[in-house]
């Protein structure tokens, strides 16, 4: 069964999702990668406002290719999430509700997700041309000097995602691999 969601997300929605759930995400999300995360932390340290209010928001770890004329956005797939791990617990404490990326998260992130009620989605890494078709608008809202790493507001229409880590700490990578390996051994026996 596929669950349709619209960002921003409430804590209740985030807590209701389970690792392995298939999701189609619509609504508004923000892109931020390594450099933007460093700057967001600096803002928080100095008590300055962030480019967007974090409460309930979803960050997509992505830096698209330049926008071709006549299209809303260039190719846009996820980048490796673990590089954002150092900054993530702080952002979660400030209300961040969801993250979209690829690959595993560290234990400190998972603990913070459980505490604050947040969800981590995996997008299909490398399926960037296909995902461009799920973005209806893209606007740079901060730090244009960072080029592909600037913060952009995206409007999504049915972006296909999997709940990779849920707010109870459930992990779709470990579960999926174990289920496959169990089935593979059954076939051999």
């Amino acid at each position, binding site marked *: 069964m596929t669950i349709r969601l619209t960002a921003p997300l409430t804590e209740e929605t985030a807590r209701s999702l389970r690792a392995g759930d298939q999701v189609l995400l619509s609504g508004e999300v923000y892109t931020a990668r390594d450099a933007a995360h460093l700057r967001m932390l600096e803002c928080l340290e100095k008590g300055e406002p962030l480019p967007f209010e974090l409460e309930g928001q979803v960050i997509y770890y992505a*830096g698209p290719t330049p926008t071709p004329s006549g299209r809303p956005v260039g*190719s846009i797939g996820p980048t490796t999430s673990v590089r954002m791990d150092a900054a993530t617990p702080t952002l979660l404490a400030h209300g961040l509700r969801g993250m979209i990326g690829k*690959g595993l998260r560290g234990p400190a992130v998972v603990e913070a997700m459980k505490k604050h009620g947040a969800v981590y989605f995996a997008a*299909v890494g490398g399926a*960037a*041309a296909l995902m461009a078709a799920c973005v209806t608008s893209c606007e740079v809202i901060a730090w244009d000097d960072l080029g*592909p790493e600037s913060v952009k507001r995206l409007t999504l229409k049915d972006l296909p995602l999997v709940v990779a880590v849920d707010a109870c700490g459930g992990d779709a990578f470990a579960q*999926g691999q174990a289920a496959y390996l169990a089935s593979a051994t059954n076939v051999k026996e």
Partner: protein
Amino acid sequence: MREIQASAITEAVAELFVTANRELPEDVARAMERARTEEPWAPACGILDILRENADIARRDRMPVCQDTGMAVVFAEVGQEVHIAGDFEAAVHEGVRRAYTEGLLRKSVVGDPLRRVNTGDNTPAVIHTRLVPGDRLTLTAAPKGFGSENMSRLGMLTPAQGVRGVKDFVLETVRIAGANPCPPMVLGVGIGGDFESVAELAKRALTLPVDGSNPDPFYAALERELLEAVNATGIGPQGLGGRTTCLGLRILTMATHIAGLPVAVNVSCHVTRHRTVTL
């Protein structure tokens, strides 16, 4: 002496990088098809179908297959009877600049590794040049994404560790990489040489046909065995479980020192791009 104008090199390089980023090479597409037919796990099949559709959309809409259009790696084989009119490396960098600006590819290069300011045009390229007999110039463009590059490893093993040590090192690299390099992966393995040449061997191995095999039956068997072992880990497409962890693994070797056994694993992904032209 045959003369080749620097401007011809610039044009060739620009074309190679734009096309390489929009069209998956045939060997990778073949390996994906084959993996799809051999994949027994339904969720994994679903992901492989998305990847195939993505490659089709990119080709049709002239969009990059992946948003990480990579650091621009160029392998050049320069015939020793070729005279290049102009500055060879400047011509390559200019080709890269044109490809990434005019071809709407992502600029993913910072000019300094610690001070990190984007160069704005994806230059400089990483250029590997070799002098070969003849009067031709062969250029291979291999844009390399860093989600997978970051998972690559180099080990200076001892001779006593032998084949077993190499196998363990490759599998350990794959396990550490897990879901990060957008599996299904492609693996380039270098064995032998010295510290820096083994890494170059591994990168060069990623430009070989992913579904080909080493001409030496000993290493062809090792390629098959390693691929089998990687595909038994259960990591699967995107790390969500399945058989298809790796589309292909190629080995390149060279002589080494009596005291050493260098091994390097260059991790790549289902968007392994390489495109060659001979001038």
